[in-house]
């Protein structure tokens, strides 16, 4: 059977890992390649690099980091952040990324996902969605000021809130820019356009370690026919188990991504997986050698 995945994520800037990441001895915590090696030894199921580099120069540095990583570890690597065009996607795949994720560019250029997947196939293109819950104050939803998108794509605009219903709005630019796009409708539209997987981040939960946004996850997972990676808020193995649980209260996700709980030595991928197996979540069992 297909197993659920645990995915550590690194933020990378100008070729270096950002955030005060702490690691055990002799790991250069700033070098993405070293950190990828560490997670490879822990038998992570995939690793994700999120590039936050703004400069053009930095993009070339990233390609080098991706190439060195692909030559150093024998595990799947997803790269996202600042991917603007089909050419960017191709360059990253050729450098050694196994999957490439797009976010803002998919909003600003609605044809990008369809064009890219027609060329490279859908399996290697991930659509990243950053979303926030829209507050239900009992009134009519006031559409937020439009962000990068001129108009939300047909059928994906946020509908007025019905009391008791939840909605989530797609954001860009690190969650600062609301778009007026409904996250569930957007996920459905992009899956139809050919996206192979969705990386769904709750901007309300990101960095909080209080658990994933399960209602949002469930709404997206149940609406799309492609795999979904849960992101934002994962603070423990129990949180991941909830996100991956296929039951009525679970998140129904196929993979759980987390950053800080692994980076700060709070736990290892091996420890998390052993706990998930105890909790009845089917993950790839860590070998005796896994940290």
């Amino acid at each position: 059977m297909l197993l659920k995945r645990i995915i550590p994520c690194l933020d990378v800037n100008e070729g270096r890992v950002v955030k005060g990441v702490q690691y055990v001895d002799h790991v250069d915590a700033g070098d993405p390649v070293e950190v990828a090696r560490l997670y490879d030894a822990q038998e992570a199921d995939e690793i994700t690099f999120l590039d936050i580099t703004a400069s053009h120069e930095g993009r070339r540095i990233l390609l080098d980091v991706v190439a060195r990583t692909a030559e150093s570890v024998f595990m799947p690597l997803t790269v996202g952040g600042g991917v603007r065009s089909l050419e960017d996607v191709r360059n990253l795949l050729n450098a050694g990324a196994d999957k490439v994720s797009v976010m803002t560019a998919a909003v600003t250029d609605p044809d990008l996902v369809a064009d890219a997947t027609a060329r490279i196939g859908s399996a290697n293109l991930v659509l990243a969605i950053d979303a926030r819950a829209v507050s239900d104050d009992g009134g009519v939803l006031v559409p937020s000021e439009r962000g990068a998108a001129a108009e939300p794509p047909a059928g994906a605009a946020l509908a007025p809130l019905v009391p008791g219903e939840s909605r989530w709005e797609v954001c860009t630019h690190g969650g600062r820019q609301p778009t007026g796009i409904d996250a569930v409708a957007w996920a459905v539209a992009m899956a139809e356009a050919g996206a192979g997987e969705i990386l769904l981040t709750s901007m309300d939960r990101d960095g909080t370690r209080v658990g994933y946004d399960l209602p949002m996850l469930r709404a997206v997972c149940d609406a799309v026919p492609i795999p979904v990676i849960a992101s934002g808020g994962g603070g423990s193995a129990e949180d991941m188990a909830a996100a991956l649980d296929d039951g009525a209260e679970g998140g129904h996700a196929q993979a759980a991504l987390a950053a800080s709980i692994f980076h700060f030595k709070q736990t290892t991928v091996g420890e998390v997986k052993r706990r998930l197996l105890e909790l009845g979540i089917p993950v790839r069992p860590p070998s005796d050698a896994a940290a």
Partner: protein
Amino acid sequence: MPTAPPVIAVVDYGFGNVRSVAKALARSGLAPEVVGDPAAVRRADGVVLPGVGNFADAAASLREKGLDDAVREALSAGRPYLGLCLGLQLLFEDSDEHGQTPGWGILPGVVRRFPARDAAGAPLRVPHIGWNQVRFRGDHPMLSGLPEEDCYYFVHAYRAVPARDDLVVGVADYGGELAAAVARERVFAVQFHPEKSQMSGKRLLDAYAGWVEQCR
């Protein structure tokens, strides 16, 4: 005097990450050469055809570069072939990814998209992405070096549907029985990515190295 390690042509035709495949083969004691010209494919002791992406474009690129004929010649000469992902799919008769495209027809069967529902009628998420268990069967020489069951990394929306069951030497479960590994004589191919499958991937490439050595 120790003999030099077998030279393996890793066919580079612009589809997929040949470097990580070459690195993984070197880790298993082989001497990989990333090659794009037919002569180099004909010279090698073994041929590895990786590949991700679109079947039609990949088939066209191999033909344009004359690499498909070179691979066939290497096969006729009995060089052990290892196909990875598209390198498995291209062996079959045709694929319907972006219109009907002929494959090499070395193995009988076709390549089709996963159905939207599994055998029991439940929705099936496509692509098939992640680690899945593969059970090996049959008596191909590659299998002597492998455990009966191991976990590998898959990422694909299309899969081979072999016309004959005896070609299938590794089975995974995804919406029904999935041909994860197929083989006949000097052809062995897998739908998953050993170069991305950590230690289980290394075990498979070690088995390939052993088989190449036997065939020399």
